[in-house]
């Protein structure tokens, strides 16, 4: 495979078109990723200046740090509370919206409206609903005889409050993706199942769910990655508290880097975050590849 002058010329032209993107990716994605690894091996001052080479000490500290471990637990709980319920709710609403009715698009827009809502706005809306004295959530609960919790003050409940907010914020995306999945199911499959006597719940579990499984799997990965990256709702609802109950991996990076100015240690945490997202993305590509392979 020798490079001819023509090869080089066409490569140069191609690179010229790619250059703006490549330069930006290099400066703001690839080099910073390398620097994150590099920083994680050093002690740093608040100015960001390196002081001493530290080897893997920060990683050893991570493994032994109770705060970091509880942070991973908080992140895991956050994902477990948010992702399955968010997807299930999205699927229910998408089925509801997948009807041929006049004016259905109005309902679709209303239910998908959270895709346009920022995490900051969503967090402020739920901050009001969670408020123990004037919030409507506990008032509604009191109507059915339930004494609502102090949502943002009890540690075990605070992470649930953050999860509820996040479920609401991702609902619009989940609905739209699943609705598109439902619309891709050929009508003949339903016809055939109906002839076989399938109805209601059975139709849903035997036909609908398997047929939208690619969309469900896509959302499983995308929503989990979104939870791993969630910052705003935690910052505005709980600031990582009470007693670190909502100090997830990303929030820990923020606190360690930009409140405690331990850039080296926070960089080691960033490497863990990167590894988790990378693993999830690779799993996604693998599964997609396998499915395409068997088609």
């Amino acid at each position, binding site marked *: 495979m020798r490079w001819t002058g023509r*090869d080089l010329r*066409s490569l140069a*032209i*191609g690179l010229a*078109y*790619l250059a*703006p*993107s490549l330069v*930006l990716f290099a*400066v*703001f994605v690839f080099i910073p*990723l390398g620097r*994150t690894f590099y920083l994680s091996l050093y002690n740093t001052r608040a100015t960001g200046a390196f002081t001493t080479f530290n080897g893997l000490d920060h990683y050893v500290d991570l493994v032994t740090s109770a705060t970091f471990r509880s942070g991973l637990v908080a992140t895991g709980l956050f994902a477990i509370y948010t992702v399955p319920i968010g997807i299930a709710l999205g699927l229910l609403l998408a089925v*509801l919206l997948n009807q041929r*009715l006049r004016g259905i698009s109005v*309902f679709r*827009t*209303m*239910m998908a*409206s959270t*895709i*346009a*809502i920022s995490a*900051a*706005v969503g967090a*402020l*809306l739920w*901050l009001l609903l969670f408020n123990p004295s*004037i919030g*409507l959530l506990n008032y509604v609960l009191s109507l059915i005889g339930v004494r609502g919790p102090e949502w943002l003050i009890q540690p075990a409940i605070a992470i649930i409050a953050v999860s509820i907010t996040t479920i*609401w914020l991702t*609902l619009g995306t989940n609905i739209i*993706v699943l609705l*598109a999945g*439902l*619309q*891709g*199911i*050929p009508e003949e499959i*339903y016809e055939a199942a109906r002839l076989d006597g399938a109805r209601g719940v059975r139709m849903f579990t035997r036909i609908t769910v398997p047929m939208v499984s*690619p*969309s469900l799997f*896509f959302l499983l990965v*995308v929503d989990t*990655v*979104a939870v791993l*990256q969630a*910052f*705003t709702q935690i*910052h505005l609802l709980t600031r990582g508290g009470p007693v670190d109950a909502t100090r997830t991996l*990303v929030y820990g990076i923020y606190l360690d*880097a930009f409140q405690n100015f331990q*850039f080296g240690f926070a960089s080691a945490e*960033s490497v863990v975050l990167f590894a988790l*997202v990378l693993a999830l*993305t690779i799993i*996604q*590509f693998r599964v*997609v*590849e396998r499915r395409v392979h068997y088609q």
Partner: protein
Amino acid sequence: MSDGGGTAIAVSRPRAASVSRPRPFAVRKAGAYLLLAVVAILVAFPLLIALSYSLMSESDIVTFPPPLFPAHPSLDNYEKVIATIPIGRYLLNSFIVSAAVVVGHLVTASLAAYAFSFLVFRGRNLLFFVFLSTLMIPWEATIIPNYMTIRSLGWLDSYQGLAVPFMATAFGTFLLRQAFMQIPRELWDAARIDGASSFRFLRAVVIPLSRPALGTVAIYGFLSTYNQYFWPLLITNQTLMRTTQVGIAQLRFEESLRWGLVMAGVIMVAVPTLALLVLGQRQLIRGLTAGAVKG
């Protein structure tokens, strides 16, 4: 940077999957509308209650039971927001930064997508993989070095610091490449025979034929930038450089939380994105479902 990956596919036309039951048609239809209306109101409830509270006085808000509708609707809270914080300046900042990112995305992504769809050169697939790999790197994992870069450039509290790091987009490049590949190859051959340069072909043929996809990229760029919180929080300190999301969240950290004021601010911040949702719904759905439906 939290764009989804995967392969894009067109969404097929809507089909209904209604399960037929022996019930009068009109009754069934009314029931469907009633259910849709109730669920849609529940989903949009946090927004609706914010709108209602923004029109109430603080003394109405703290009455018990919590009121659903304002007894004496007034725009006082909106006037107070304008008097309390420079919301006009925040909106201006957000629009400048978002517009800059949109222009950046359209330019960098069309150039790159053009190279990936029409130009032939060695290493093209490898470079495309380099682009896609940026989707696996969470922005939060590189935020420490990026903060250092912006600080050393002297770009803290600046529009370029807020916009430039986000001006390239792998997801947008991917979407545009899909659109460009729909353009008949014969047009390209004809243009070459006529002696048109490759850049002229991009400008005169490819761009005008790809308006819908460019619209999708623009709406995505705008929404994701306008709704950012973490990055502008980190790199802006001066009040006059704050963006809307950060500026509005400051109301939450004031000593006495005035809920009517906060909700008025929230509505003012959310209106531009909700308007965009209504106007650009089709483009948004196209973007969201790319990568999801089929693998």
